[in-house]
């Protein structure tokens, strides 16, 4: 018998959107304010876990066909290569650069290489957290 969980389903569909949007806000906020790649990634992971809880693992896996171990590896690779790219400019490893650009919609915007590093961190955290949750949930 299928359990009656209409409320959970409907709430999750909205809540996951809010969580994911908030985590993007957290991610970008991290450059000058509290937030950043780690916490942003963690809240994305929490949104995904909520999906896994509400709908079963198979359904979510069909709709998001991603191997999260690879996501984690990919994230760390991005972070390392961002750090290592400073080797090309003969700067110390992990050096960063930033500048101000006039973008069409956003106006004057600060772009920093540290954000790329943070993307890597976020992906690594998402991949690791989801992998851990999925491995624990598998039994035997």
């Amino acid at each position: 018998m299928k359990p009656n969980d209409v409320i959970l389903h409907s709430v999750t569909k909205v809540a996951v959107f809010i969580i994911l949007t908030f985590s993007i806000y957290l991610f970008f906020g991290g450059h000058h304010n509290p937030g950043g790649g780690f916490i942003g990634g963690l809240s994305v992971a929490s949104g995904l876990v909520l999906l896994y809880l509400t709908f079963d693992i198979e359904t979510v896996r069909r709709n998001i066909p991603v191997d999260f171990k690879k996501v984690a590896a990919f994230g760390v690779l991005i972070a390392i290569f961002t750090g290592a790219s400073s080797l090309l400019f003969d700067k110390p490893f992990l050096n960063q650069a930033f500048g101000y650009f006039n973008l069409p919609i956003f106006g004057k915007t600060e772009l920093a290489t540290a954000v790329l590093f943070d993307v890597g961190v976020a992906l690594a955290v998402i991949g690791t957290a989801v992998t851990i949750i999925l491995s624990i949930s598998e039994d035997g």
Partner: protein
Amino acid sequence: MNNTVILPMIIPVIAGLIMVIFRKNIRLQRLLSIFAILAVGGVSISLMNQIRNEGIQTLQAGGWEAPYGITIVADMFSAILLLTTSIVALFCLIFAFSSIGREREEHYFYPMFLFLISGVCGSFLTGDLFNLFVCFEVMLISSYVLISLGGTKLQLRESIKYILINVISSSLFLLAIAYLYAITGTLNLAHLSLRVAEAGQDGLMTTVAFLFLIVFSMKAALFLFFWLPGSYSVPPIAVAAIFAALLTKVGIYAIFRLFTLVFYHEPEITHLVIGILGAITMVLGAIGAVAYWDIKKILTYNVIVGVGFIIAGLASFTSMGMMGAIYYLIHDMLIKALIFLLGGMIIHLTGTSKLKEISGLIRNHPYLGWMFFVAALSLAGIPPLSGFLGKVFITRGTFETGSYWLGAIGLITSLMVLYSIMKIFMNSFWGETYISKDMEKGTTNVSTMLPIGCLTALTIALGLGAEGIHEYVQIATESMLNPIMYIEAVIGEDPIR
């Protein structure tokens, strides 16, 4: 600033991550891992030459100056250990190709192996106590995976113990770091050295030093070695060999670094205790090696004897003793990998590790037998093989400072080591040949014999050609005994900040 210094840490990580993405492509993983290890070896050779010509090389990550940022430092001692690490890792890797099995290869064996190497290299290179902790963890977490990968009953039993022991010692490590930070307000090793020298090493500081000694003793199997014989005898041969060759050595490196760079003001207390611990370790390890009739147990107890002996060189705290310790450290990394591979090969061929059930292997495997003989002599320090020089220098170092007891124990235990290892040789290679070639459980092939042959050649070459690396060892000794060289390289000419 020299970016080369970071490469030994990041090359294995990058290679390992690419392998995680291409999990099913075993051929790519093998090629990439060989390539990564070779690259680390090449970088360490170039580092050795740079250090010889220009002095200690440093990198302030992200351009943040020491003591505020993260410092990566390569002095000659670390560079030599890096090179040895990459050599040992290369041969263990080649050995693993044919012996580790498809199952393990598909379950991230190669990435974990490379993360382990990265952690080891990072521990040798970091100039900051907290990053030493981080690199230790990288190394340990990979070793947890490697020790339990395969999931046989024995492996799981021992890996639980191994993980518990290491979690406890890691938390003590963190505690010790916290105490030290509370007292000195810094964790940069060079800055610590300065602050401790300024404030003087009083009783409190020495107590913290002992806390560090306990932590690293647990990792290095110095006196606190109760966990080692069990956990090193369960994983597959290639993994056991790399553990025996590298993991305890990282603990030894940390003891050397801290007690030559930071806590060197009260040698009559700290170094005496280190010497006593070394002596006890040698005696207990040798007793274990002599007493057992199981190849794996004998070999693991030999690892413990080696640790005690290297530490005796530090305890003497003379340039002779230190030089001997460096020589012996290089030798020990090579020979422990070799003797584990050889012992593992015997077990692989006969299907048992009980000496009394093995006999007369020399008839079918003459090369294996003679290489075992060479390795056994080298392990005991018979001239002209590689163990000899280190043994002579360490013994002279201990005699110079008047600690005759330490040198004497070192010499007596090396006789016991010789006995224990000859016991394996005589029992397994001499005697009547029970089993014919087709009755053997396993076979030898190029991928397993090549690493053994190369390591045997290296131990002979290192013994005969010790003159060739003497210059480098001398530089390493000099910079270890003069902490100011390290401090100036990291913080600059004007160290009063």
